[in-house]
C-alpha cells in the first residue's frame, strides 16, 4: 500500500481524495496555486506545497512543478482527480517513470480512450455496440438507400466537413431520402467546399447512461451499475442519478455484462466509466470512455455502499478486487445535483465572495464541497461550488429529499443554479423519469424562471 499520496488537483475532489486516504491510513500532500492557499484541501492535507500562480497552466497543469513537489515531499503515489492532468497519458507515464504509483488506468488505456476514433474501433472489436451508420462517406444514392434501410429510420445525414450542428439533416421516411440527400450534399458543398455525407441512426430522445467499471491489476473486472446523466445543458451534466429510471433488471444486466466483457478483452485496469447512448427502443451504443474518477461517483457510492476512492487507491496499489459481480447490488436511489456559481437563467459564471453559507444536512444528505462563509469562488477554475447527493429508499422519496435539502441550502454573495434545480425537481418529465438529453432545453424554453432568480 502507498504511504503518502500527492493530490494533483484542487477543491472538492482533492478533499474527497484526502478523506479516502486518511481512512486508509495514508498521508496526503496537497499542491495548490497561490490563489488556493487558504482552500480546505490545503488545510486538511497532512502537508501542502504551493506550485505556482493562479492560472491552471502554471500550477495544476504544471507537470514539472507537480513532479518536483512529489519528490521534495517524499510522496510515493499521485492521484490526479478529474479534469486537469487526469487523462493525460504523458503525465501518467512520467509519474510511473519517476518511480511513483499512478492512481488510475495504465497510460496506454488513457491514450486509447483519449482518441475518439481509436476508442470506437477498439470497443467495436471488444464487442460494444456502435451507433449504426455508414462506416465512411456515402458513395452514391443507391448505397445511401441501402444503408439507411439497414440502419433504420429516422436517420441523420451529416456533412463530412461539417460540425457544430451545421450540415445536418434528419430524414424520417425513405421517400424523402434521395431529395434530402441532394439538398444536404449541395449545401455542404457550398458551405464547406465538400459535399461528402455520412449517414447514421438518428436517436430522437437519447439518454446518457454510463456504467461504472472497477478493475484490478490482475484482470478481474466488475461493474457497479449505471448512472443516468441525461440532465445536461450544452453537454454539461447538471444532475445524475442511480439507478436510471430508464433501465430494468434485464437491460442493466446486459449493459453491465457487455461492458465488463469489453474491459476484460482490453485488460482495462483501475476505475473507468463507459458512456452509452440509450435510444427509445432500449438499444444502447458506445459513445466514449472516461479513464478517471468521475464528478458524479458519489451516486454510485450511495447505492452500492462502497467508497470508490478507497477502492481506486487500493486497486492502484495492486490489491486484488476481491468482489464478485453478484456481491454488487444497488440499494435505494441516489441523486446528485451540481451546485454551480452561475446565473440560474443566463448560466453566466458568477465568481466572487460567499458572504453567507449553510449546507443542508439530515438523513440521506451528503454535500461534497470546499465552500464556506468567506470562501471566494475563483474566476480561474471550474464554477462548481458543491455537489449535493441525496439518498432514499425510492426515486420519489429521493426527489422529495432533494427538494427538502435545497430549501435548506443558503449561498449568498454569488449567484448559483439552485433556483434552476428547484424548477427541475418539479418538472413533470423529470419527476416521472421520462427525460432525455434534450429535456433541459425544453424546460428552459417552456417555463419562465421565477422573478429574482
Amino acid at each position, binding site marked *: 500500500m502507498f504511504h503518502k499520496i500527492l493530490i494533483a488537483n484542487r477543491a472538492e475532489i482533492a478533499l474527497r481524495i484526502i478523506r479516502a486516504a486518511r481512512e486508509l491510513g495514508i498521508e496526503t500532500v496537497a499542491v495548490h496555486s497561490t490563489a488556493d492557499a487558504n482552500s480546505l484541501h490545503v488545510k486538511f492535507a497532512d502537508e501542502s506545497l504551493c*506550485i505556482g500562480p493562479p492560472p491552471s497552466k502554471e500550477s495544476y497543469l504544471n507537470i514539472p512543478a507537480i513532479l518536483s513537489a512529489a519528490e521534495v515531499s517524499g510522496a510515493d503515489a499521485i492521484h490526479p482527480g478529474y479534469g486537469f492532468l487526469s487523462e493525460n497519458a504523458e503525465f501518467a507515464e512520467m509519474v510511473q517513470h519517476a518511480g511513483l504509483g499512478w492512481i488510475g488506468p495504465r497510460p496506454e488505456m488513457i491514450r486509447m480512450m483519449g482518441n475518439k476514433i481509436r476508442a470506437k474501433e477498439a470497443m467495436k472489436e471488444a464487442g460494444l455496440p456502435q451507433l449504426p451508420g455508414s462506416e465512411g462517406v456515402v458513395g452514391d444514392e443507391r448505397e445511401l438507400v441501402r444503408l439507411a434501410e439497414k440502419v433504420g429510420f429516422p436517420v441523420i445525414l451529416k456533412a463530412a466537413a461539417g460540425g457544430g450542428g451545421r450540415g445536418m439533416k434528419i430524414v424520417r421516411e425513405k421517400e424523402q431520402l434521395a431529395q434530402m440527400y441532394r439538398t444536404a450534399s449541395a449545401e455542404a458543398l457550398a458551405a464547406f467546399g465538400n459535399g461528402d455525407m455520412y449517414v447514421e441512426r438518428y436517436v430522437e430522445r437519447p439518454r446518457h447512461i454510463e456504467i461504472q467499471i472497477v478493475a484490478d491489476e490482475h484482470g478481474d473486472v466488475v461493474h457497479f451499475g449505471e448512472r443516468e446523466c441525461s440532465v445536461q445543458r450544452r453537454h454539461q451534466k447538471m444532475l445524475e442519478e442511480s439507478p436510471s429510471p430508464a433501465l430494468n433488471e434485464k437491460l442493466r444486466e446486459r449493459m453491465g455484462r457487455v461492458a465488463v466483457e469489453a474491459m476484460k478483452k482490453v485488460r482495462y485496469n483501475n476505475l473507468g466509466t463507459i458512456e452509452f447512448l440509450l435510444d427509445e427502443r432500449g438499444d444502447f451504443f458506445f459513445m466514449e470512455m472516461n479513464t478517471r474518477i468521475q464528478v458524479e461517483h458519489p451516486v454510485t457510492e450511495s447505492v452500492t455502499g462502497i467508497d470508490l476512492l478507497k477502492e481506486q487507491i487500493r486497486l492502484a496499489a495492486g490489491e486484488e478486487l476481491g468482489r464478485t459481480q453478484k456481491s454488487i447490488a444497488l440499494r435505494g436511489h441516489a441523486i446528485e445535483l451540481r451546485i454551480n456559481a452561475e446565473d440560474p437563467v443566463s448560466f453566466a459564471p458568477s465568481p466572487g465572495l460567499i458572504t453567507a453559507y449553510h449546507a443542508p444536512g439530515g438523513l440521506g444528505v451528503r454535500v461534497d464541497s470546499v465552500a464556506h462563509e468567506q470562501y471566494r469562488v475563483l474566476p480561474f477554475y471550474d464554477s462548481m461550488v458543491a455537489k449535493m447527493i441525496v439518498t432514499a429508499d425510492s426515486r420519489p422519496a429521493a426527489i422529495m429529499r432533494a427538494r427538502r435539502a435545497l430549501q435548506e441550502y443558503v449561498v449568498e454573495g454569488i449567484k448559483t443554479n439552485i433556483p434552476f434545480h428547484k424548477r427541475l425537481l418539479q418538472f413533470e418529465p423529470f419527476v416521472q423519469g421520462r427525460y432525455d438529453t434534450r429535456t433541459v432545453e425544453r424546460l428552459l424554453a417552456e417555463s419562465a424562471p421565477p422573478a429574482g432568480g
Partner: protein
Amino acid sequence: MDVEKLREILAALQGTDVTRLDWTNGQERLTLRMGHPPAPVTALHAVPAAAAAPAALPTPPQVTPLATAAAAPAAAAARDDSFTVNSPFVGTFYRSASPDNPPFVEVGQVVKKGQVLCIVEAMKLMNEIEAEQPGRLLEALIQNGSPVEYGEPLFRFEPV
C-alpha cells in the same frame, strides 16, 4: 540564562559548521544566527549541476523576478525598504553549487544584478537563481537542502 552561559555557548560554537541554533528550556528561548556560514555539509540530493535534462521536460525559467511580491517573515535586521528574492518554483534549495563549495552569497555581501544567489533543484535540474537587482544580503531565510514552495522567500536584501 546568564551572560556567562551565553558566552560559553558562543565560544563553543566558534569554529564549527553551525550557522543557526534554536534552544528552548521551559520559558527560555534562544535563537543564534552565525554571521559567516561555512560551506553547507549535507545536500539531500547530490546531483551534479550538469545533470542531463529528461528530454520531454520543459525547462523551468532560470531567473526569478526580484522582490515584487510576498510578505516575508519579519526579520529583526530588516529595513523598511528591504526586499526578498522568492523561489520561482517548487523544489529543493541549495546555497552552493555542491556540498564542497562555499555559498554563492554570504550575509553582508553585496551582489550585482545577474549574480547567482542559489540553486533550486526541480526534477533533477539544477536551476541557478540570479539577482535581478543589486543588493546587500541581510538574511538567508531557508536552510540549505530544504524544500521550497513556489513564491517562498529565499533571501532578504537591502538596496545599495
